[in-house]
């Protein structure tokens, strides 16, 4: 299918509030039919084979039923009515028609219901598989994949697949079947008239495929233009303070008015195509009524003049042709749309399957052991790491940490602090070297058993939708309310939680947006406290909390760190000063190690960083 190049809008020089970045990759909307994909999709119907097979049988019945119904209608008119037969004959005909109509609609009910149920079942299974597979994928996948993309797999892509499963195959089969049967009927009754109709078929096909292409293109342009409208709107609302603060209301309003006009102009193009398509299709049906009347009339009145029986026969056939022709022409209009739906489904299926085929960076080896309860000794032995093959992020990292000690990782952005904690958390495996926990090589243990003895608090302080109570409980599913309260009591933050609108039952917005940064941190601390892990990993938030809350956080933090092996990417002075060991990192190397006092006394990198800090605060 030839692709029309898509101009982004009517007017490419339109000045707008927001401009879409051109390096945003665009996902294809259609893909050619691919047998492997179809087969794999078909496999998804296997658990629902009975429904699928019943449907296939129903489809065959229906493709005969529909022409039969039209035939019955025509038979009643051309037979009893046109021949002025007595009333009982007509009644009999009408009742037969009615009975058959009931049968047809009952079959239709099952055809509709089963197809939709099958589509839904496949989509459900597919969503389940996507979600389950996502749980196994490595951190590197999450780092390189945008959330929106993952959501599209679950939404628009599975929807495209649904259309493919529930419609394309069954609708196409019914359409082709009914078209063929109708053609058979017409061919049987009057092949000359049928040839006439056949001549009109390419015209309908041509018209609808011409417009379908243009309409498809128009819809894409409309969508693009609409996404510009909505993104401008979204930013206008989010940026309203900036707009009013900088007195930009009128400029923005003018730009938006032009954008909306541009959007409406694109819509007019679509209207031109739909207008053209529908009026031409309408013309076509008039054309063939006229052609049937003229040709049929000619055959009856002129060619068969005198042969009374033949005249009557042909006259009756006119009704049959009127009734059948719609069934015959319908596939020409419908199949094109189904073909497009199939291409869209292919594109969706391809993306879903390629997600399902994404392999995790590593999986636990079959002989991986369950990590026994640990004390918390951690050792790095010549560890190297790189996210991309050619760029080393860590070089020959060596250290041994005794159980219960606090390690502060210090260094500039990009020095490798975060990478080290990612490795301890086994989010990645080292490229070279060994990491051991209580002497067990990290690669030889089951990841889940390690994570169960580990607690993680990251900068983003992520909270799930739900209550504070539920969020803390994430640290230890099945913990009682008392245990949760106890964890908070230990951190001495009960009053801070009580100060929230509904205490522990306060609902948290997505990502914890309705709470302040300090409150979010406290909840994440409590979550880790409840888990009571032997090893704690903490990436301190860089954002500063207001000074009054800061004191409470520092206090809670020192309780949390006490008695467990802790790795802290530290930004707080107090945390750094209290650490048992500070590892100073620079470009992937450990350049200094020691306590705060030792390092200051040495007068190296750390001391000069600290000196700068004091200068800044003295200004």
């Amino acid at each position, binding site marked *: 299918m030839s692709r029309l190049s898509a101009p982004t809008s009517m007017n490419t020089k339109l000045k707008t509030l*927001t401009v879409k*970045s051109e390096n945003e990759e665009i996902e294809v909307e259609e893909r050619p039919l691919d047998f492997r994909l179809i087969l794999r999709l078909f496999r998804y119907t296997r658990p629902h084979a009975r429904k699928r097979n019943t449907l296939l049988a129903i489809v065959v019945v229906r493709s005969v039923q529909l022409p039969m119904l039209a035939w019955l209608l025509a038979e*009643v008119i051309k037979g009893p009515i046109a021949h002025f037969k007595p*009333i009982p004959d007509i009644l009999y005909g009408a009742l037969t028609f009615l009975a058959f*109509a009931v049968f047809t*609609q009952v079959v*239709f*009910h099952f055809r*509709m*219901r089963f197809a939709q*149920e099958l589509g839904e079942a496949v989509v*459900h299974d597919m969503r389940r598989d996507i*979600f*389950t597979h996502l*749980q196994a994928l490595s951190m590197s996948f999450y780092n390189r994949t945008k*959330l929106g993309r*993952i959501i599209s797999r679950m939404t628009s892509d599975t929807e495209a697949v649904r259309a493919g499963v529930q419609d394309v195959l069954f609708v196409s089969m019914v359409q082709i079947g009914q078209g063929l049967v109708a053609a058979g009927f017409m061919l049987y009754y009057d092949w000359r008239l049928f040839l006439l109709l056949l001549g009109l078929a390419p015209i309908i096909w041509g018209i609808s495929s011409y417009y379908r292409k243009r309409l498809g293109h128009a819809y894409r342009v409309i*969508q693009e233009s609409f996404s510009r409208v909505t993104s401008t*709107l979204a*930013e*206008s609302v*989010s940026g*309203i*303070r*900036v*707009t*009013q*603060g900088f007195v930009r209301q009128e400029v923005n309003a003018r730009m938006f008015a032009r954008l909306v006009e541009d959007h409406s102009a694109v819509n007019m193009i679509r*209207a031109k195509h*739909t*207008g053209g398509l*529908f009026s031409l299709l*309408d*013309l076509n049906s*008039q054309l063939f*009524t*006229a052609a049937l*009347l*003229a040709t049929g*009339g*000619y055959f009856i009145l002129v060619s068969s003049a005198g042969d009374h029986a033949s005249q009557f026969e042909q006259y009756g056939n006119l009704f049959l042709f009127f009734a059948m022709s719609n069934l015959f022409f319908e596939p020409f209009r419908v199949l094109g749309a189904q073909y497009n739906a199939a291409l869209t489904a292919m594109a969706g299926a391809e993306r879903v399957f390629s997600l399902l085929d994404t392999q995790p960076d590593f999986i636990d080896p079959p002989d991986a052991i369950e990590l026994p309860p640990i004390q918390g000794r951690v050792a790095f032995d010549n560890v190297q790491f790189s996210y991309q093959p050619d760029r080393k992020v860590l070089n020959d990292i060596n250290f041994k940490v005794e159980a219960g000690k606090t390690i502060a990782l210090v260094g*500039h952005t990009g020095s490798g602090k975060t990478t080290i904690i990612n490795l301890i958390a086994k*989010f990645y495996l080292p490229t070279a070297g060994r990491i051991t926990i209580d002497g067990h090589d990290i690669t030889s243990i089951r*990841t*889940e058993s390690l994570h169960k003895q580990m607690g*993680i608090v990251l900068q983003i302080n*992520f909270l799930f*939708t739900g209550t504070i109570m539920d969020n803390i409980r994430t640290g230890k*599913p099945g913990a009682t309310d008392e245990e949760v309260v106890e964890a908070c009591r230990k951190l001495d933050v009960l009053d801070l939680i009580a100060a929230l609108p509904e205490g522990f039952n306060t609902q948290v917005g*997505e*990502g914890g947006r309705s709470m302040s940064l300090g409150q979010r941190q406290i909840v994440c601390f409590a979550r880790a406290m409840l888990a009571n892990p032997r090893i704690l990993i903490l990436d301190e938030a860089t*954002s*500063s909390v*207001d000074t*009054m*809350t800061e004191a409470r956080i520092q206090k809670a933090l020192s309780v949390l760190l006490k008695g467990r092996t802790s790795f802290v990417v530290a930004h707080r002075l*107090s945390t750094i000063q209290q650490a048992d060991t500070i590892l100073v990192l620079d470009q992937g190397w450990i350049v200094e190690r020691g306590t705060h*006092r030792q390092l200051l006394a040495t007068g190296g990198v750390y001391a000069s960083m*600290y000196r700068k800090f*004091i200068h800044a605060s003295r200004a």
Partner: protein
Amino acid sequence: MPAPPPKSVEALRSDARSQALAGTQLPTGELVRRMLALTWKFRMGCVRAVVAQMLLLTLALSGLKLSGIGIDVIHHAISPDAPPPRWPFGFAPPGQWTAMQQVLALVTGILLFALVRVGLGYINTLLQERLVQDIVVHLRASVYDKLQRLSFRFYDANESGSIINRVTGDVQGVRMFVDGVIIQGTNLLLSLSFFLVFMLSIHKTLTLFCLATTPFLFTSALIFSRLVKPAYWTNRKLFDTAILRLSENVQGVHVVKGFARQKQEIEKFSVVNSAVKDQKQFIFWCISFFTPFTGLLTQINLAVLLFYGGYLVLAHQQDPKEGISLGEGLWVFAGLLQQFSGQIAALANITNSVQQSLTAADRVFGVLDAPVEIESKPDAMPLPRAQGRVTLENVSFGYKPEDRVLHEVSFDVQPGQCVAIVGATGAGKSTILSLMPRFYDPDAGRVLIDGHDLRDVNLDDLRRNIGLVFQENFLFSNTIANNIAFGHPSATRAQIEKAAKIAAAHDFIMAMPKGYDSLLEEKAGNLSGGQRQRLAIARALLLDPAVLILDDATAAIDPQTEHEILTAMDNAMRGRTTFVVAHRLSTLRRSDWVIVLENGRVVQTGTHDELMRIGGHYGKAAKLQLADAESIRLLGMDPADPPASTTPLAQPFEGGAA
């Protein structure tokens, strides 16, 4: 048609919350009156649409009638039993014409009508769309324009998803009243009467019999949409929950993996995923019951027509004055019946359209009617260039009347001074700052600039005199240059670069591949926190404001990048009255004096050094950030604080404006 793009997660959440948000709740009568007024505004378009529709209908019915006559002509020609065709309006063909000639004449008529219909149909589609688009453009532009001016109280009270929806979906809902209710309704009523008259003219009792199922058709269409719509809505909400689970699972992947919660997550998802599927079964059942059912109703009509119509054809043969003919009677009637059924179903949809457009109208007119709380007085004083003295006199304020955030706050800041405002979250720091550009008006007391009450000053002038740097600075997805020039779109490149240089942003901008023409991604995701902050400072400086407001500009920045901003801030403050909300000691020390807020009251004021000496909250909190004496000794640094005279207090007017 391509599937609609997935809703953003934010939209999902705000949808849920905005359900509860009541709009202005205009009475239904008022809403209808407003929408009728809108219709009146576009009356010419409406009349055109109705007229065109009626012409089309007439043409279609005429074509049908002609084909019916054609059937009768042939019937009469081949069957001596069949009565002669009835020609309408005395258009009978000359007696000497053969049946074939008559058929050809009729066919020519059909084709002529068809050709006119193509042209008219095409024009009609365009006219209708033009009308729809005109209304949508008109409404969208006015709602957006109003939104830009509405005060922050409106934005505080409404979720952004709901606000966006007013310009997109709700506007379409209101538009639907014009084309979906008024035009469509008129069309339907007119065409149903056309059909009815036509059918009655063919045969009265037949019409009655055949339309006996009509009430069922109408009711079932109504019941169907009443059943299915809420079910779809429920399903949409269920599915939104499923997507929320997914997005949180992805965003919180560290927590999920770090605490080994995958199994629980899979279970949680499986519950909603199955709920979506189970709930759908009801919808499927409804659809697959009602669609065949309405189909059957039409076919019952046809069966009735076959029987009773067949009887009438028979009667007609015995007495041409009685009954109906086969073509122009029965055949045409069958055609009419099918279209009639379609129209009845459409009629049921109109009742839904009314409901939808009423809901939408409430939300759209809610925006258009919302009072702009904060506006310039008609006789407002122009303020081309302020000196920068800012005074608060006994200012009290609350976002909600019953919930005071500020209590009798007073202070007087001289031009060029730098004031730091500190306090715990919720103490009222940002609130004080938002009173200065008049984002809100105080409930009691006065805010003054250069001695003038803000309410007497031209609002646009006032705001142009104030440079704003927020805690989280919104940057638009546009080029860097356009973002800096946001407040002054016609600024030259030289002016933009100058502002960027003062804000210490020029170097990193030039390091980007396209320099000032580099595009920012959504939420400026391609910049670091420090870079975003410096762009925001440049944006504020381009206006060369007399007053500069820096609301916690360093909050989201790690200490390593903080010094980049501090330089920028120092440059920016020079020669302006500056208000700074900050927590970091490094920033606090730069100020001429400090205001300490607690629960909306000023509890301490003084210079940093004074406050440190007095102790109290401020001193205690500040000490947390101080390097301890031990560390300073180890570094061999001078333990004494630098004298206060090196702070910028001594040179308030030094250095001109940028």
